[in-house]
């Protein structure tokens, strides 16, 4: 067993780190403050291949693997979790299920513009009454000739309004329960599809989160993803894979806060000493650094298990669970090391702390991750 990154992954990390430092970090404070979607960053991300990392070149992807993708999310999240959210939702939740469950025609049609970054993707599963219990879908899709007609509403949808392609989960046959749920590819300009209110969030404010409304929304029957009744399975498998990226995001947020604190505590003086010279600071950073490394190993393991074609659910849920806690814990403690300056918006700590909380909630709460882990470990 060798824990070193391969040469190509090491060079990828170097690329991600310099891109994030130069292109993403300078905007992080502003897009948080003004709740602005960083369209210019997304365009640059497309230019350098960041919008299609873990997909084959024949569909316009970069030919990378899950580890290459996780490294990108980690490095970007160090500086701006909102930008990482945009890329993760696009990659894992939209391009992911099309690649996994789409027909060859659907892949040829939808993946190249998504993966080249010409179009942005989103995923609509959550509803007002269907959060952790995703089986309670109220959005309905009815077959009508060569079309499906969608009615209902989705909430908390990342990239809504800016995305061109939406994966929408809807009930096609309520009598069949989860097996009556189907997945669809809906384009932004589909008749009857509109974007509802934009949510005001605690963190990741630069990412857009809105309601999606379907009123007799008509889409071609060819846009059914997989077969009728497979939608719940497709959604769950999509989330299984997506958790690796979200875990990497929690990890990256923690690393960002940790690095800020290492720097700050070496400069800040109190009682005639740099505060890094106090043992409390040293113990805090030693503890956090150790936890970060443990979580990093788990994220990379989950990614490598997926890349090896093995069952990775256990590891992706463990990683998401622990990295969610890591992000919240490390940002809170790093803010404390900054004292009053940590609480001031001029420093990035309070933003990092607000951003970190979402990792414990979206794409399956920490509690849902524990349900999955317990199930996988056969604890009954």
């Amino acid at each position, binding site marked *: 067993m060798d824990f070193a990154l391969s*040469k*190509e992954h090491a*060079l*990828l990390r170097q*690329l991600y780190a*310099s*891109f994030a430092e130069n292109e993403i970090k300078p905007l992080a404070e502003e897009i948080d403050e003004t709740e602005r979607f960083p369209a210019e960053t997304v365009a640059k991300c497309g*230019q*350098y*291949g*960041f919008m299609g*990392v873990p997909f084959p*070149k024949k569909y316009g992807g*970069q*030919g*990378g693997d899950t580890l*290459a993708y996780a490294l*990108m999310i980690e490095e970007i999240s160090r500086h701006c979790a909102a930008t990482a959210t945009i890329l993760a939702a696009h990659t894992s939740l939209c391009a992911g299920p099309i690649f996994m469950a789409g027909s060859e025609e659907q892949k040829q049609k939808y993946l190249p513009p998504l993966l080249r970054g010409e179009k942005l993707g989103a995923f609509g599963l959550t509803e007002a009454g269907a959060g952790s219990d995703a089986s309670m879908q109220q959005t309905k899709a009815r077959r009508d000739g060569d079309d499906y007609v969608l009615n209902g509403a989705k909430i908390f949808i990342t990239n809504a309004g800016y995305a061109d392609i939406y994966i929408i989960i809807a009930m096609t046959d309520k009598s069949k329960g989860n097996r009556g749920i189907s997945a669809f590819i809906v384009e932004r300009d589909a008749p009857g599809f509109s974007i509802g209110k934009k949510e005001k969030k605690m963190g990741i404010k630069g990412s857009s989160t809105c309601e999606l409304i379907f009123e007799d929304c008509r889409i071609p029957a060819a846009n059914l993803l997989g077969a009728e009744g497979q939608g719940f399975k497709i959604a769950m498998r999509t989330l299984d894979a997506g958790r690796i990226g979200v875990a990497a995001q929690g990890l990256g947020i923690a690393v960002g806060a940790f690095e800020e604190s290492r720097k700050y505590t070496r400069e800040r003086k109190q009682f005639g000493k740099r505060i890094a010279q106090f043992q409390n600071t040293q113990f805090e950073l030693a503890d956090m650094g150790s936890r970060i490394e443990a979580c990093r190993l788990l994220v990379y393991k989950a990614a490598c298990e997926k890349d090896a074609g093995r069952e990775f659910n256990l590891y992706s849920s463990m990683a998401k669970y622990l990295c969610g806690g890591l992000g919240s814990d490390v940002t809170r403690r790093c803010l404390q090391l900054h004292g009053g300056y940590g609480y001031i918006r001029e420093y990035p700590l309070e933003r990092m702390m607000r951003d970190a909380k979402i990792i414990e909630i979206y794409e399956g709460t920490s509690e849902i991750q524990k349900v999955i882990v317990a199930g996988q470990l056969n604890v009954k």
Partner: protein
Amino acid sequence: MKIIVCIKQVPDTTEVRLDPVTNTLIRDGVPSIINPDDKAGIEAALRLKEAAPDSEITVLCMGPPQADVALREALAMGCDQAILLSDRAFGGADTWATSSTIAAALKKLPYDLIITGRQAIDGDTAQVGPQIAEHLGLPQASYAEAIRVEGKRVIVKRQFEDRYQIIALPLPCLITALAELATPRYMSVAGILDAYREKRVQVWDLAAIRDTVDTANLGLKGSPTRVKKSFTKQAKGAGQVLRDLSADEAVEAIVGKLREKFII
């Protein structure tokens, strides 16, 4: 057009450590980068290729085996081929031995334009590029801030401290690039993956260039430069601060000091 860009891998820090015996740089443990001026040269070549897509860019680096990553980075930015000139016999080279080695390799390659960086941030000599041109008998333009290819010639804007010079050179020729010549692009994700999976770095050792070089000009033994002493400069003592002077008095005082030290 066939373009060759010569690059050097340099330590990414100003705190270079020196081997106390040979007075050469210790590279282990120091992060390495492509020398900034050289990277601008890569970008300039890539832009020339964008304007003339049938162009081909070869990137050449002399260095130890770990310089491979600098060449991979150049490939990941979009260069077509890479050659690493690496042999123990090349080690410890000064600018004369380095330019002799690189010129020997260039004699084996087709080219219309050779681009090198102006100077490396570790040695700061600015000699290797011009020496290569001399070895090859090529026209050269150093300190290039802007370049433009017009048919069979290249127009170069050369930067000096107090002026510019715009000159035309016939191809083939050699240009040394300033960092200002072109802001380097990032590597792309697919570029990195291709750089390791599809492209390859050819390694040329002494045997590969033996017939185009006099081996007496190689490596430490072929280097006429003798380093007498290397040291880290110590901070000078505090300067003299003149306070509360009017502008005229200040001029008078400064000019007086300069006269006193026979500087003017």
